[in-house]
């Protein structure tokens, strides 16, 4: 009896081993097909179009003319610079505000369950709806922010925050931080709750202060989550479209035009598909380079802090 069982088991294992591959690919194929048709093929097509002068009318191969024109345009480099500035500033703020928010929500105070729920609304409503609310608040005549600034005597007159270049840019940053903060906060909070209580107690017994424990225990322990949230929000912020589009459509005078907005205007609004595609390819290359560099960095961080 023992012999039979021992003989049968490997055979069955082997049969399954063999069909594992086929079965796995069968299971993945619907997802793969979707990505191939909706992401990979359009991506290849975008690259092809970027070498043409495609419009609604037709298309001719123009070589690297689109790229040459793009790289020779000082405005384009301004847009690239602005996009990275937009990304770095907004992501840093999201991480800082998220870290502060998560620490507050993690504090042992009565009412924390309610506070945690109250962080979520910006995350569960359509982004565009929240941004419409912000657009109202920024208006100069009867908007909340202008009104408050006047009330506190910070400005003499009404200010239309979206009408001047600098204030429009920073207003868009504030709104972007508002959209992104809840999710960052919740992920940080969850990570903080996963940190072993023993670590804190051991440090406390040794007389470590609250701030010291935060710096030397909390931060290192949640570092992997901080780093991956930073990458995700960097990509989202870089690609962020709705916020700027609804607030300013890239204006005034291009002050809030990021690469995505520029691409949309050229490709969709004015239907210059070839030139738009060249811009899209630049975005993909920039993001891919950035992400690879970042993942390499993430790997090092994980190794340094001992990935779980």
């Amino acid at each position, binding site marked *: 009896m023992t012999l039979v069982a021992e003989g049968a088991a490997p055979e069955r294992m082997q049969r399954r081993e063999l069909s594992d591959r086929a*079965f*796995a*690919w*069968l*299971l*993945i194929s*619907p*997802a*793969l097909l*979707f*990505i191939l048709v*909706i*992401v990979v093929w359009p*991506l290849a097509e975008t690259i092809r179009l970027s070498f043409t002068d495609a419009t609604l009318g037709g298309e001719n191969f123009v070589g690297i003319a689109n790229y040459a024109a793009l790289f020779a345009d000082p405005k384009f480099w301004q847009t690239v610079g602005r996009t990275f500035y937009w990304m770095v500033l907004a992501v840093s703020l999201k991480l800082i505000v998220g870290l502060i*928010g998560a620490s507050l929500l993690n504090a*042992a*105070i009565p009412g924390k369950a309610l506070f945690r*729920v109250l*962080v*979520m*609304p*910006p995350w*569960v*409503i*359509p*982004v*565009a*709806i*929240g941004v*419409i609310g912000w657009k*109202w608040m920024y208006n100069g005549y*009867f*908007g*909340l922010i202008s*009104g*408050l600034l*006047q009330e506190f005597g910070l400005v003499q007159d009404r200010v239309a925050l979206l009408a001047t270049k600098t204030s429009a840019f920073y207003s868009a940053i504030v709104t972007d931080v508002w959209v992104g*903060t809840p999710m960052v906060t*919740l*992920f940080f*909070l*969850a*990570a903080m709750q996963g940190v072993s209580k023993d670590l*804190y107690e051991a440090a406390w017994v040794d007389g470590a202060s609250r701030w010291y424990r935060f710096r030397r225990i909390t931060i290192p322990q949640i570092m*992997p989550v901080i780093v*991956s949230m930073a990458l*995700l929000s960097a*990509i*989202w912020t870089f*690609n962020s479209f*709705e916020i700027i589009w*609804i607030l300013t459509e890239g204006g005034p005078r291009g002050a809030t035009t990021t690469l*995505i907005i520029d*691409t*949309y205007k050229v490709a*969709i609004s004015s239907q210059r598909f070839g030139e738009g*595609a060249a811009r*899209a390819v630049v*975005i993909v290359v920039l993001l891919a380079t950035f*992400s690879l560099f970042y993942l390499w960095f993430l790997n090092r961080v994980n190794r340094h802090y001992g990935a779980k």
Partner: protein
Amino acid sequence: MIDRLTLLQKIGVYIATFIFLLFILMPFIEMIRVSLRPMSHLMTADFSWWSDDFSLQAYRDMWVTVPLLGRYIFNSIFIAASVTVVTMIVVIPAAYAYARLEFPFKSLSLGGFLAVNMFTGAVLLIPLYRVLRSLSLLNTYWAMIIPGVAFLIPTGIWLLRSYLEKIPKELEEAAYVDGASRLYTLRRVVIPLAIPGLIVVGTAVFIGAYAQQFLFAITFNNVREIQPLPAGLFEFVGYQDTTWNELMAAALTGVLPVMLVFLFLQKYLVAGLTAGAVKE
């Protein structure tokens, strides 16, 4: 027992929490305030926190100003729900493969899926537009559902995989030993056990689809009747005669149904979502 917060520290935490939540909730507070005031007063009076002209008039008038409001609300939920169903049908088997099976190019292909996260629809709009046009799907619900699905698949696989990994293997082994086929085991053993995880991932996909429908809607669809809420309301923004109080009333009414459902689910959702992230 670790040191507790002193009374003074507690007060400090409350004040800081209050300021933090004020930043998060300010637009909602302001939208509610605006929706409760007559437009003529909003436009003429200086800014004031409180006034005695609060009324619900805008919540009645909005149905006239935005005649399709009911449709918009329905469309938003319908599109997000369809995206969720299609995404889950595609994601469940894939996530199972990544959680349980060993096969060539496993980590490479998973990396490939995750790399899709780098793109948003905005980069691929031109060819997507052409794909949808050649399939005659422009100006249909599908034009807003299909791209939405594609960009939520990677996250869906990623989240669900970490759930399925936690289901004990022994149960599947037992089913095999009893002679069940692989597909039967997936359907009758794995999926029922994974229901809490499926709810979490499904809700996350729904929120993703619900929050991000604006771009595809304004680009691939110009039929008013099937426009989702954000795109439908955007039409009213930015004109001299925008009746902001009615717009805000419509926006708040529009997000209310999903907000309420979410309030019931939030506890499970947050725990589940972040569990996947932290484990990684």
